[in-house]
């Protein structure tokens, strides 16, 4: 690293990460934690597929299967896909807009630790009497009836990690609005920044309903409330509405940043400006907006009545239009370009047909009467894995290869990367394509086994074989990461050679203060513009001066730890455990104590002095 941060031992590296408020290190934390949860969710998926490989299988028990599928869905969505995307946002977005850091570095760290402890809490359920088993949607009648503490783990864990995500969202919004470098107008922001912006806005508005409904679930189960208790006047449909008022925007929270990553990749490796930039921006915003108007398409069979179903059906279909705009703009970005098939680009190219296939089944499901057939069958499972795996996960894999050099300063092997791609991609289609037909042929989802003689055997076997392919793919990615890290061959600031946006103008990995001088942005794709004028560096917008940096802090960790502890108390108090209430209170005291400590003790950060910056050799920061 730089001369300012010296070489350290292992313990101090750990301490550094526990207390860091640097967006780039937080990004790495997100990547590690999210990656870990992805593997966990993947293993759960493999167990699901093993169980369903043949009819009447008893590889896992019925109850355990329900826990597996619930934790698979919950882990993948909340603890893997979203944090991984937040990781990339943290790593890249501030660089793309030429900011020193995010607006609230402290809150950024707090967001991470809340997510982490929430996820940890949720997964501890495996060891403490059973995981949640009511599906990731946790519909109220079943989740109230579910015995043991599984659902309590779900409610408390998601509540804690949800706060973290919400903070992340607000943080990114403020960063983008307030911290752009001179000249970086809204309509010059890279698409990944735009999608981060819109996804963050969705987080801001979608998480509160989830918070409220989880709060109600928690109070129904743990403190005797009656929101969903029909016998006491409660109503279970409320849960369903809230879950989907949150849940549908949630899927766009996942896909929009994925779109952003692909937009960057398409234009980089086509060596071409993104086609129809302004309509891409418009489409992103429109998708975000429409995302809030369609949630009841998950509830067509609830019996809301024909008027509601018809309205939501038509609204749902409308989303095809802005999404289509994006697809065609990507195609036209490649058109006339000079396409280089690097690993990230291969993923991007493969994404288009995969995602379109998933998207169009989404529209088919939007046709309400047809959805009466599709709903809660493997057709739905096929749809959402096509959009999620074919969209989000491909983007995550592409982003991993694409941004790895920027984050770690080394290149993942292209050869192994292609191997990974091949197995993952083939496995993906093998697993999920056939599931459309399983669903149509009468296979409900969330079944722990199926009987022979219903025509479902072959399809399920094929699907399970595909899953094994995906497994091989992911293992090869891990191998790639290990090999690359061991080799540790450093690369320069623009390793792909065709970088267009600001992040490629800075060293890989960037110094902890990012740009030494804030760059002056003169148009879309600023780094490309400078390169086209024959310059290797960006024009600085300010003279070299002192840089103000925040201090690291252990407080975010402590605040989150307090909630983590309190959650155990809240959960076990219904078992009349004597220690539960003290633990609940103790945990809250830790949390609020740490918060009070933070607000009373001022922390003004420190300055890096101009002289130190000049002293450093010149390949750090903006090369000016």
């Amino acid at each position, binding site marked *: 690293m730089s001369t300012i941060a010296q070489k350290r031992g292992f313990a101090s590296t750990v301490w550094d990460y526990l207390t860091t408020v640097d967006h780039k290190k937080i990004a790495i934390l997100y990547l590690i934690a999210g990656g870990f949860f992805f593997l966990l969710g993947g293993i759960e998926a493999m167990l699901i597929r093993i169980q369903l490989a043949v009819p009447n299988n008893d590889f896992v028990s019925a109850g355990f299967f329900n826990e597996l599928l619930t934790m698979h869905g919950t882990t993948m969505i909340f603890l893997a896909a979203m944090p991984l995307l937040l990781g990339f946002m943290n790593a890249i977005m501030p660089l793309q807009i030429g900011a020193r850091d995010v607006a609230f570095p402290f809150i950024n760290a707090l967001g991470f630790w809340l997510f982490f402890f929430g996820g940890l809490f949720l997964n501890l359920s495996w060891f403490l009497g059973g995981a949640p088993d009511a599906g990731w949607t946790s519909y109220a009648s079943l989740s109230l009836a579910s015995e043991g503490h599984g659902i309590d783990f779900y409610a408390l864990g998601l509540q804690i990690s949800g706060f973290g995500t919400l903070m992340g969202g607000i943080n990114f919004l403020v960063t983008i609005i307030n911290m752009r470098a001179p000249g970086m107008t809204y309509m010059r922001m890279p698409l990944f920044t735009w999608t981060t912006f819109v996804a963050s806005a969705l987080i801001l508005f979608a998480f509160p309903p989830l918070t409220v409904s989880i709060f109600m679930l928690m109070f129904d189960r743990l403190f005797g409330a009656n929101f969903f208790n029909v016998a006491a006047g409660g109503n279970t449909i409320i849960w369903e509405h809230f879950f989907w008022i949150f849940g549908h925007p949630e899927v766009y929270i996942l896909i929009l940043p994925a779109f952003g990553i692909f937009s960057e990749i398409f234009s980089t490796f086509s060596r071409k400006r993104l086609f129809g930039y302004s309509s891409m921006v418009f489409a992103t915003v429109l998708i975000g907006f429409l995302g809030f108007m369609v949630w009841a398409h998950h509830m067509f*069979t609830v019996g809301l009545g024909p008027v509601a179903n018809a309205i939501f059906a038509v609204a749902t279909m409308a989303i095809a239009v802005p999404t289509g705009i994006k697809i*065609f703009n990507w195609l036209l970005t490649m058109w006339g370009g000079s396409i280089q098939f690097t690993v990230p680009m291969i993923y991007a190219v493969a994404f288009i047909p995969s995602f379109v296939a998933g998207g169009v089944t989404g529209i088919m499901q939007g046709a309400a009467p047809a959805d009466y057939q599709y709903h809660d069958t493997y057709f739905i499972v096929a749809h959402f894995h096509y959009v999620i795996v074919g969209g989000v996960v491909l983007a995550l894999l592409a982003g991993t290869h694409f941004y790895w050099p920027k984050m770690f300063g080394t290149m993942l092997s292209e050869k192994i990367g292609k191997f990974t791609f091949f197995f993952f991609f083939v496995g993906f289609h093998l697993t999920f394509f056939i599931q459309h037909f399983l669903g149509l042929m009468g296979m409900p989802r969330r079944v722990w086994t199926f009987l022979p003689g219903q*025509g479902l055997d072959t399809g399920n076997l094929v699907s399970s074989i595909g899953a094994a392919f995906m497994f091989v793919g992911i293992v090869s990615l891990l191998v790639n990461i290990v090999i690359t890290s061991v080799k540790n061959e450093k690369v320069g600031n623009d390793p792909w050679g065709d970088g267009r946006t600001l992040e490629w103008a800075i060293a890989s990995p960037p110094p902890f203060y990012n740009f030494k001088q804030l760059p002056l942005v003169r148009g879309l794709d600023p780094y490309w513009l400078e390169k086209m004028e024959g310059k290797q560096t960006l024009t600085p917008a300010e003279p070299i001066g002192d840089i103000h940096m925040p201090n690291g802090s252990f407080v975010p960790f402590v605040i989150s730890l307090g909630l983590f502890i309190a959650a155990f108390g809240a959960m076990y108090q219904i078992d009349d455990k004597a220690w539960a209430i003290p633990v609940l209170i103790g945990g809250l005291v830790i949390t609020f104590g740490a918060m009070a400590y933070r607000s009373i003790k001022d922390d003004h950060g420190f300055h890096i002095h101009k002289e130190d910056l000049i002293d450093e050799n010149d390949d750090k920061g903006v090369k000016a």
Partner: protein
Amino acid sequence: MKDRLTKWRLLSVFAVLTLVLSGCGEPFLSALTPAGEVAQIQYDLMILSTVIMIAVIIAVTVIFVIAITRFRRKKGEENKIPKQVEGSHLLEIIWTVIPIILLLILAVPTVTATFHLADVKEMDKKPNKDGVRDALVVNVRASLYWWEFEYPDYKVITSQDLVVPTDQKVYFNLIASDVKHSFWIPAAGGKLDTNTDNVNKFWLTFDSQKSEEAGNLFYGKCAELCGPSHALMDFKVETKSQDDFKQWLNAMQTAKEVTPTDTAAAEGQKIFEQSCLSCHAVSPQDARPEQARLAPNLATFGERARIAGVLEHNEEELKNWIRDPEKYKPGNKMTNTYKQLNEQELDQLAAYLMSLKVEDK
């Protein structure tokens, strides 16, 4: 390489599609072999939307394939800088308007069908003087892993096997008694949830000819996760011609309690009355309120297609079931609610239960 892969995939799409549409999937279960008006409407909508979607996919694929083959970076072009195009208004308009048109084509039948399928006005028409409505109404009550079907106008109840007439609208009132389930007969039409909060209503029809092809027995499923045995919460739909159905109803209405003739069955009846009758009724005219009806009505048990929805219908399986229901349906509500039974008692119970029939056979 890439483009061959795509073409190959596309071809296989069609191959699989035709395969499926030519009758892959079992006629008693598959939504692709519609056996009634509702399923047919939904199937038509599915086909219409699939055709539109395939058109979309083809359009995208064509552009896609051309783009990635024609514009790949070739040897000697390493330094080529393509023209930096900003966009094109004409193209933007085209790919906004065409999808809108396609969606309109889909939206119109969607909305029409939504209203048509939700039309249950017939149910609310006044009953005639015998309290019987013109429309045939069935109350469906879903409970943890079993189904109850009540014919309210005829005051009879059956469980697990739904009996319906062909070529006639059958109206359903749906509700759940513990947690949410969902009532689905794929071949006859889409599902509707059985909520715990309210009664949901819809209708289905069963085409006589299609029924015959399916052996007059359709499979029904629970389509909402409801606990460990959600996967096993199956039921069967037996279709009868309208005349046969009337006869069946009649038989149900007049059915007398079975008095077993052979001694084993008679012993079985005694055991049953001791251990089982508190939950299970053996008469189709069970007048108890629904909260008291804790278990499937066994009046027609001897005529069932399956035991507990999933097991083969024979004495061996029946004894297995009674011996340890937990093994066959984890989490069911019958386990451990009655005393241990020895083999002899099991035989007697089985004999008794198998003799429970309404129609003489």
